[in-house]
């Protein structure tokens, strides 16, 4: 039982770290895309303002919310494994 708690706590810490790493990665990819789109030309206005606005849109996007799957998928995996191994 203690083992289960320890596993849950350390697993959660690992998942939180991984969540932040994936968030940083995703944001970086988004910024790069915006920069390239602006630099390709055909966009009016200030470069920094364009990128800031694009990032604001990203912060509310579905892609950003999908990063929560970092928590969901491993937890579902563990839950399904526990069920299949012990209760079927």
């Amino acid at each position, binding site marked *: 039982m203690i083992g289960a708690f320890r596993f849950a706590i350390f697993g959660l810490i690992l998942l939180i770290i991984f969540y932040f790493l994936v968030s940083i*990665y995703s944001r*970086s990819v988004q910024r790069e895309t915006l920069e390239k789109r602006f630099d390709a030309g055909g966009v009016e206005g200030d470069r920094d303002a364009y990128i800031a606005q694009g990032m604001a849109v990203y912060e509310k996007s579905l892609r950003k919310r999908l990063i929560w799957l970092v928590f969901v998928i491993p937890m579902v995996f563990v839950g399904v494994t526990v069920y299949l*191994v012990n209760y079927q």
Partner: protein
Amino acid sequence: MWRKIKWGLGLLVVTLVAAFLHYTLPQRDVVRITNTYNRLTTVGTENSWAYASPDSGTAESVQTRDIRFIEAIRPNNRVIVYRNEDTGWVWPPYFKYDSSNLQAEASNARSTSAAPEWVVVTHYGWRVPLISIYPNAVKVTPVSGPDVSLIPWLNMVILLALGLFLVMLWRMLAQFHERTIDPALDRIGDTIDEVDARADGLWARFSGWLNSWKGKPRR
């Protein structure tokens, strides 16, 4: 020479990873269970890695413990012996804590060669008699006969997921390199160039000043 060493090391790593996955991933055997029992077993230093860690449910002691075993026979008449231990909560990630129930199911599925009952035993691990290690049985499921064909869908999904995870890590590292490390290195390079240029300017002024002490060429 170095090429060969590099290839050798690469081959070694691939072999180790493959062996690790082969040990850890679930496998299924079609067998007929012939006996189930407990045996007092001493776990030594050479094989303790293939037994449950001492803090998991069924392992009461580090060295000598009562372990449940399941003896079975394959359709080709070769025998196999499984151990039946809890796995604990870290590795391998089966989270198994129902060894007693599994032992009861296995005992219930015992049969004789005269009236065979075939089962699929899901397990992980290896049977190596030389160092006395046994695969750990995880699940026992009745099947109709010894000829059922089993497709390892679960292993395909796990390997695919592992592959995707590695690609993801690789992409993340590449992005970090491209967007954070390289610009930083560029900045350092620029700073060094600037310092260099400023030093050049200083040197030119200094040598100009030195030259100003020289006498004018005589006519």
